[in-house]
């Protein structure tokens, strides 16, 4: 029973998310059928077409029935079809997910080592100019809107230098060089935000750890400060970072919406945004569900890795 508890928790979270999305979509003003017809939907002769559309997408059924159908579809792993393009939601998610996932993973790959280095060294040189500038820059990186950062990068690297494409996406397997040149600016934009958050986190953790008695004892024992910083302190203050990175995935998906918008990447963020604007219920529901599953899985993974690296929490 205790072993099953985490899975149960997982299911409950999923159910809550699914239900909240379902309910809030229906509470938001805006009729998907009207949107499908456009501004001329008010003409009398289109009333019939509105009814057709509602019938076709099951929008005329009572909400509770729609909810039931929706839940049973999920249980049978059927995310349904887009109300607008009639494509399968699973297809849409499958094409969009690699874009967002690689955007987020590459940003992490870039941001994590940089944040660790900056956070560790700044904490060691506490209250010196280096430390102050690192912390100021980290706060700045966190507070600067990604939208703005993105446009600045495009202006500089694409327009002024003509080095990198300003937008678009090419699949990795189609053209690896094209892929990386297109991903470069988006990844840097998202990573910048992440560097801000993570550097600050590593900094406080490290400053904390450096105050610990066992670090002072190690110093008293003559262990070199480099070894202390990059072995003991790093290991101890970085393990909690795994959890933070797991938590940040949620925020990063939010950041990805903006970055994808600026750089024209066909990822989950844009899929979701457009589906919300178009009141494409099945796509919104399917995308949120997929994102939730991924975020939960990543958090479980983070927790697992954390436990692996942190024997203290074994008991």
């Amino acid at each position, binding site marked *: 029973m205790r072993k099953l508890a985490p899975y149960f928790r997982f299911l409950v979270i999923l159910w809550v998310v699914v239900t909240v999305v379902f309910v809030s979509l229906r509470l938001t003003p805006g009729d998907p059928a009207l949107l499908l017809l456009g501004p001329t939907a008010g*003409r009398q002769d289109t009333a019939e077409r509105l009814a057709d559309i509602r019938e076709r997408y099951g929008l005329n059924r009572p909400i509770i029935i729609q909810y039931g159908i929706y839940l049973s579809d999920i249980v049978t792993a059927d995310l349904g079809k887009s109300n607008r393009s009639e494509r399968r939601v699973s297809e849409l998610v499958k094409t*969009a997910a690699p874009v967002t996932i690689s955007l987020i993973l590459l940003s992490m790959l870039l941001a994590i080592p940089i944040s660790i280095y900056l956070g560790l060294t700044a904490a060691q040189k506490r209250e010196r100019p280096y430390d102050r500038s690192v912390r100021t820059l980290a706060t700045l990186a966190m507070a600067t809107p990604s939208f703005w950062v993105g*446009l600045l990068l*495009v202006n500089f690297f*694409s327009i*002024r230098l*003509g080095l990198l494409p300003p*937008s678009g996406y090419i699949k990795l397997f189609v053209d690896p060089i094209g892929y990386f040149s297109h991903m470069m600016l988006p990844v840097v934009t998202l990573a910048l935000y992440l560097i801000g958050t993570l550097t600050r986190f590593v900094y406080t953790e490290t400053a904390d750890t450096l105050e610990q008695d066992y670090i002072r004892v190690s110093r008293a024992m003559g262990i070199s400060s480099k070894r202390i910083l990059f072995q003991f302190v790093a290991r101890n203050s970085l393990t909690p970072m795994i959890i933070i990175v797991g938590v940040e995935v949620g925020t990063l998906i939010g950041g990805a919406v903006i970055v994808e918008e600026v750089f024209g990447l*066909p990822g989950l963020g844009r899929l979701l945004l457009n589906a919300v604007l178009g009141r494409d219920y099945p796509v919104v529901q399917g995308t949120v569900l997929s994102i939730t599953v991924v975020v939960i899985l990543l958090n479980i993974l983070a927790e697992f890795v954390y436990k692996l690296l942190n024997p203290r929490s074994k008991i």
Partner: protein
Amino acid sequence: MFIDKIKSFLLTGTVAASLTIAPISAIADTQTITVGLSGDIDNFDPATNQLISFQAAFATTIFDSLVGYDSQLNIVPRLAKSYNISSDARIFKFDLVDGASFHDGSPVNANAVISSLKRSAELGGVFGGPLQSVEKFEAPTNNTVKLTLKSSYAPFLTALTNVAIIAPSSFENAVSAPVGSGPFLFESWTPNDSIILSRNDKYWGEKPAFSRLIFKPIPDPQVAMTNLYAGAIDIVAEPSTAVIAQVDTSKAQVIRPSGSNSIVYIEMMGTKGTLANVHLRRALAHGFDRETIKSVAYGGQGQSEASPLPTSSFVYTELGGYPYNLEKAREEFELSGAPEGIEIGLEVLAGFPEAEQMGRVWQASLSKIGIKLNVVVSELSVWLDRYVSRNYDMTWNFFGVSPDPHSFFDVILRPHLSGEYQNQKVIDLVKEGIETSDNMKRKQIYAELQEIMVKDLPVMAVQSRPIASIANKSINGLELNPLGWPLYAQSSKSN
């Protein structure tokens, strides 16, 4: 919302920075023209997708219609190489061009055209609706289509410009895989990424000078302009009024049509009934400072007239209207009996900052005569909900009026005629207008209608909307028609 907020500051910040930067060379490939659209397209069925941006992008590329427009909105033959209209505007005969075929290889013959027209009639809506008045679809020969209407319908030919002919094999999958007979064929759509068309090498007419036409959805106008300056796209198809005003003409060209048939309206009669009294509507009109609004919101562009029809219309009548005059506005306000300090909501669609600016100017004027105007900006789905149910005090809107004046009365006025604006005279005149084929007589009918519109103000015309496309200097020969459709097929790209 977040994006919106920082957008205005970006307009001044980033653009100012980018203006000082020299553009890099555009995409070297002169065979591909890439166009930035303001939104993604997810339904490619021309019979059901009624979005302006869909029509503007695909009506002249993927699809052909029996008749179409030239860059001046004159009706010109397309799939019908010639046509013949009976004097009572009831029988329409079309001779099809020779050798036309759909992208799937099947021939564009009378039967195919008729089944496509019938499908549109069945699906109805703004485009297919007029076809519902067809009594008989006939194919006297393999290359002739004869349509007999139930009664005279003068705007029928104009209506046909909006009816794309698609291959019978594609009826089922038109939403995702449209098959037309136009100069470009649909290759692929990657949601939120690109729509790729390639040249139809078997096109019956003049073949385009370039082989690929790519559309990229770029909702943010700032991002679109950055992409244009960087050479990642060649054309920004639907720039907002604010963006047009900011184009650096040393780097890009602004392509404008000969005139604009896109007219901005204030629809004043919602189901709420707030403005049921005509004096109150007139008070609002007198408090509407056209000059200031034109210069503040529309950068001095466009024509601000009282008539709801574009000045280019053959029935356009110049009318005095309601000059900006707060004294008169106050008089009308008193006549209306509406309480001092009355609150009136104006619904505006997000993404059109000029509409909000217009609202602000109006608000300032009206506050001086004791009317409190609330400008309500909503995203499309919310706005549309209120628009269609007419659940508003008044709403902003715009519409591309086709060369036939009936389109305004059919699309914009009709819902009001069957709702809060009860006027049998207007109903009769509208009916007469479509049943009369003599243009001289129609002029008189529509002159009277325009006068009544201005007098009664169910809908107040604001002005014509400045429309344009922005293109890199390497794009040649691109024209826009007064509806704002870029005529891509005739353009080309140089190094």
